[in-house]
């Protein structure tokens, strides 16, 4: 496996771990399941509600950092410029390599709406973070209070879920391979 493939796989697998393994498979499932339970909270097992509020929901804080890093690294790792740090293009004389890498990167940015894609994903991430912080501030930090308040915050949970879903869609839309210019 070439270094180029390793680099691509790294970003791809980081995206897959975040977007597929966690965001869609876990986080959105949990949020949607919790929202369904809030329709009749009295019938829901209290430990399930508490477990979600005390553990699952809080995972967002660490994962949001991962999402930020993932988006920030997109241009570096998925631009054709990345090919110049690996054989055979890395064997070019430095002056020519740097010039060509720079030009190709520039061309890539011009040909594809890269900054729009990343910008949209970052905007969606900011939206999700904002929705999360609003929700957290309303829930408070006391475990018992959180369980009691949650049913009154259905709209806020739904807004957070919608923001997360937007983020997932934006991240999924980013290219899966280095686009040729």
């Amino acid at each position, binding site marked *: 496996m070439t270094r180029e493939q390793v680099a691509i796989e790294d970003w791809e697998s980081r995206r897959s771990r975040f977007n597929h393994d966690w965001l869609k498979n876990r986080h959105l499932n949990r949020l949607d399941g919790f*929202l*369904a339970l809030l329709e009749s909270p009295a019938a829901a097992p209290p430990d399930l509600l508490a477990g979600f509020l005390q553990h699952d929901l809080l995972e967002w804080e660490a994962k949001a950092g991962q999402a930020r890093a993932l988006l920030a690294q997109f241009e570096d790792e998925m631009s054709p410029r990345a090919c110049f740090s690996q054989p055979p293009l890395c064997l070019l004389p430095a002056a020519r390599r740097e010039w060509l890498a720079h030009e190709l990167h520039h061309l890539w940015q011009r040909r594809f709406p890269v900054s729009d894609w990343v910008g949209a994903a970052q905007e969606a991430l900011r939206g999700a973070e904002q929705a999360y912080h609003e929700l957290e501030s309303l829930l408070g930090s006391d475990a018992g209070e959180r369980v009691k308040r949650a049913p009154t915050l259905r709209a806020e949970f739904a807004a957070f879920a919608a923001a997360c879903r937007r983020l997932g869609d934006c991240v999924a839309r980013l290219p899966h391979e280095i686009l040729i210019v």
Partner: protein
Amino acid sequence: MKSLPRILIIDDVYGRAMESKNRDRQLFCARLGVRDVTGGGASASVENPVAEAVLYSGQVRTDRGVANDLEGVVECVRQGWRYWPRWALVLIDMHFQTGPLDPATGEPQGDSRDRDPARYFGLEIIDRLLQDEELTGIPMVILSSMERQQIERRFARRGVFAFVEKDQLNREGLDVLLWEHGFLEDDLIIGHSKPVLAALREARRVSRIGNTNVLLLGETGTGKELVADYIHRTSRREGPLRKVFVRANDDMFAADLFGYMKGAFTGAMGDRAGEAERAHEGTLFFDEFGNIPGGAQDKLMRLLDTGIRETQRIGDSRTRILDLQVVLATNRFEILKEGFRRDLLQRANAANPILLPPLRQRREDIPLLVEYFVRRHEQRLGAEHREISPAAMELLQASSWPGNVRELENEILKAVSDYRGIRYLSPEHVDAVRRRDAVPGTATTAVAAVAAVPEAEADQRHSLRVVMEGMAGVEFDIKSRELWSGQLVEFQGVYARLMARYLQAALAASAIASGEPRPTTAIRMLLGRKTLRTSDAASTIKRLLSISREAIADLLADENLHLGGTLRWAENLRGGAGSKAPPKRPGKTKE
């Protein structure tokens, strides 16, 4: 009373075997509005569940972590497809994480190959299920959070009904999936056998199209009218359901169907709308469509034109345009071949008829139907509530029923009506069934092999059932260990003899096809496997026979069974000299 549909979800995360700790699974079930019936799970209570769900990881723990278990998946699917409650829908994840367990999360760390779309375990499962003849027609849906475009072309060739993005699926979405693709019961039509559920699914699908023509093909008494009711109900069309029963040489057919104007013919005393007009915005059902007189066929062509359905009353120059769903039914399968206008058949959508199965092809529904008809007629006639004896049920289930459900109902009606005061329905009360099936030539060809159950045999079956029910209730309680002292050896002996007889029967069955008993084929039949190695068959026989030498004696006493090398070791055991020696390696049996 229809039961909740049961779905199978094959997913590594939600199916993982740590139910009470698996919040992901509990929340998934809450989100989909399904009741978790996997067993051992602390299922969150779900109000008005859409379905029952069995969640299965499709994986096994090994000494190296977690591995995918294709054969386990196939067996799980097979069991739920063969027996009721049957899978209404199978939802299959694509990406299954394998490898060593992460000490922090207790979950597999994953392998780079797991994420390779070319190697998705979900697609491997689908391929394998499609190769299995017994699983033909099983409704499968992909449920994945992976991007679909990477596998779009691959799964499109695999007979999968839909690709559903995992984060998009909710209660309403699952309901729609079940409605469109699932095997669902309905209170209108009693039965949950595969052919019935498949016919109901087809009926739902055509009813969704709306302005269309549907042809129902089925023998007399298979419930064509009920299916027409079902199609009309599920179409949610605003207009009424009107039914036209076409009799051979019916002179008034055209007048009934298209209507007439005053004076159009002798006896036409006033204007009258036909059944077609009355069914506007609803459904028009033609029973015995094959009897439609030749003279009416031209006008019917215009009515069956789904572009513009036109109708004209007899004696009227005006044309009326109708919005109709037309359901045509016939038991005359031969009309598809000859004697009927080709263009009319094409308009009747004869290329895609809904086939209603005869009762002999849905025997598993007979107990439900019997129970339903007995209760209905008891209530209607004010008769005693009766228990249905297993022997009577066996008899009814084994009958050929050339008149299908209608004949079964008539038989039950007679049994209840003639014996209103009894509280136990026995074979004598459905005597006509036994007499009918005993008359040569009355059973249809398809069921000629199914003999009527003689009384002695029916009684024996009843006895067997009593024994089995008794055995099911046996409890090995430590307090009564003295009672069991010394009995277990005998118990094992009985079991071994039973298994030996079972094996003997399978060997005899294997000889039907090949002319001589085939041990591997026999064991394969017993285990319900498609393939089996000779060595595995030999091991199975050894395990059975090692329980008791008496069982071996029983097996070898049948000289008609010329057993091959796989069984010769058993004779050595019987001879005594080698009884304590390890069994000889069986000779390789060619099959």
